[in-house]
């Protein structure tokens, strides 16, 4: 397999802080790669460098055979790389459907299409994805009114709208109901196998990564600490020390398995999931709900 994305020696500094210090990473076409690491290890900054949201201080990034190191973010998107953000970026004042319609492949549009309304095929595709993400009913709702988890889902949907070749998912499952996490995993797997879309996932949900990825890269303090299959990574002593703190905590992390019924505190049953989705989200503050205990 040829590398779809290939980054060599990527360096990004913020003043005196080296967030990413010479990282090599590659993703083959149709590959699923996990990117894990403790907080502050440079995962999101690396994503920002790869998607050209941030300029790099050194290094070379190639995508689909094109040197994208000096390109602007929209050019990279037009080459077929899409991403989601750890801090969700949706167009809050626009409807859910409009958010989707705005995430098309802009590079394919000529001037007449640019000054035309959204076509039926795009609407269809958006509706299909929204239904899948259980957001179908909310398509005319203002995106800012969705709950944090729903906005997360919307962002995933938006990242798939442009028919990308590579999707960078930044903590796509954080704030998402566990049953839905399993659905998202299924969808990612389907998109991956049917359309050969590659995924690079930043995740704290280790089980999610283990389920999906053939290969995991561990970052620590801006450098690659380890790389290998999920099994190898989870047994790697240096990873256990840096990421999981100690083996006991690592084991607890792995309890975030969707199918595990024995994680009582933070989980709600399927019934309440569907009730929640039917009733939809809370109003202005995305974090408001987090403080409310589930009865």
């Amino acid at each position, binding site marked *: 397999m040829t590398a779809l994305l290939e980054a060599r020696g990527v360096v990004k500094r913020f003043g005196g802080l080296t967030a990413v210090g010479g990282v090599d990473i590659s993703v083959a076409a149709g590959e699923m790669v996990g990117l894990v690491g403790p907080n502050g290890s440079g995962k999101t900054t690396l994503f920002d460098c790869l998607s050209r*949201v941030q300029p790099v201080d050194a290094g070379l990034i190639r995508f689909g055979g094109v040197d994208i190191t000096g390109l602007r*973010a*929209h050019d990279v998107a037009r080459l077929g790389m899409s991403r989601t953000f750890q801090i969700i970026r949706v167009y809050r*004042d626009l409807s859910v459907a409009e958010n989707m319609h705005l995430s098309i492949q802009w590079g394919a549009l000529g001037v007449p299409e640019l000054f035309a309304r959204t076509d039926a095929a795009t609407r269809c595709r958006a509706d299909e994805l929204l239904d899948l993400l259980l957001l179908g009913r909310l398509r005319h709702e203002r995106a800012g009114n969705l709950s944090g*988890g729903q906005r997360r889902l919307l962002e995933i949907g938006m990242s798939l709208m442009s028919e990308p070749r590579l999707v960078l998912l930044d903590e796509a499952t954080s704030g998402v109901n566990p049953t839905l996490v399993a659905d998202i995993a299924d969808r990612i797997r389907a998109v991956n196998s049917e359309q050969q879309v590659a995924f690079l996932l930043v995740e704290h949900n280790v089980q999610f990564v283990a389920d999906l990825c053939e290969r995991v890269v561990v970052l620590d303090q801006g450098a690659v600490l380890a790389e290998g299959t999920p099994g190898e990574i989870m047994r790697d002593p240096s990873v256990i020390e840096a990421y999981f703190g100690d083996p006991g905590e690592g084991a607890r992390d792995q309890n975030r398995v969707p199918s595990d019924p024995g994680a009582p505190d933070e989980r709600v049953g399927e019934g309440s999931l569907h009730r929640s989705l039917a009733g939809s*989200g*809370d109003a202005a503050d995305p974090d408001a*709900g987090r403080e409310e205990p*589930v009865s």
Partner: protein
Amino acid sequence: MRREAAGDPGSRERAAGRTVGATALAALVVLVVLPLLPGTSNATLLTLTLMLTSIGVAINWNLTGGFTGYVDFGHAVWFGIGAYAAAILISLQSNGPQVGWHPVPAIVVGALVAGVLAAAIGRVTMRLKGPYFSIAMLGTFVAVREIVRVWSPLTGGGVGLTLPPYLNRELFYYLELALVVVLAAFTWWLRHTRFGAALVAIREDEVGAETRGIDTTRFKTAVFSFAGLSTGLFGALWAYQNTFVDPDIAFVEVRTIDAVMGTMLGGLGTVAGPILGATVLYWLRELLWANLLDYHLLTQGVLLIVIVLFVPRGLVGLFDRRGASLLELWGWKGRSRGLRQSSAAGGEVEAAS
């Protein structure tokens, strides 16, 4: 899910469209017929023409300030540049006999000059965000006015330029009315295109828009240039009717303030907002001038505070609060109802995360 019980949003949108269309048509008929009535004086026509100018500038300001989210505090600079460029061309003199341009090409070129300068300046200033952009445009405005004042061989300096009189109030009135109607229709159309939606996306989240493939620099500069050109056209027309320009009447801060206030009063980032708001503001100002001359600026300041505090979404937003779906056609900001009552259920999703 009361929303769904209320029916297909498309049909409600069409119903709202009929209401808005009927209102707009009635207003238009009044404006078309008014000059034909025997009692209408030239002074009234001039007042109405200036009102239309004010509406036109507000619509243009709203394209960058409302839709794209780049709050331009120096928008009047394009008005002044358009006015001056046209005035210079019309009053060109070379050693005696006048060789000034015909007003029609002069006005067109005046607008183009404003558009080209807007493209050049916007390309630089639109790299700045938020208040930095606003201040940069305010600086541009002041700088250009001073350049015009100093560059006397071309601009006549502080003395200004006098143009040959051509006072056909009716012609200008109908011309500006047509311009405003076309501009309003254009804005409505633009907002429904992908390009227009992309502008709102830039306002909502520029980084997000850029990473999703929208060439934000090109889009926002394009709309900024268009707004500059269009405001320049109103400026050029104004200069010709006024038969005189000098730096202090062509470059007026209040023109920017009126556009900002009018748009905010009507509804920022909506199609109807600047039209409604600029009209109300214009007549309010006339009223204040006539009755409270000493306090008119104070009153306007208080009004601005009241708008920001109590009607942040403008007059268009008031319709929405009452439940009319007018906004869904003209405003695109009124999608907030229907979810609030189920926030408890939403809380569960959050807590589950």
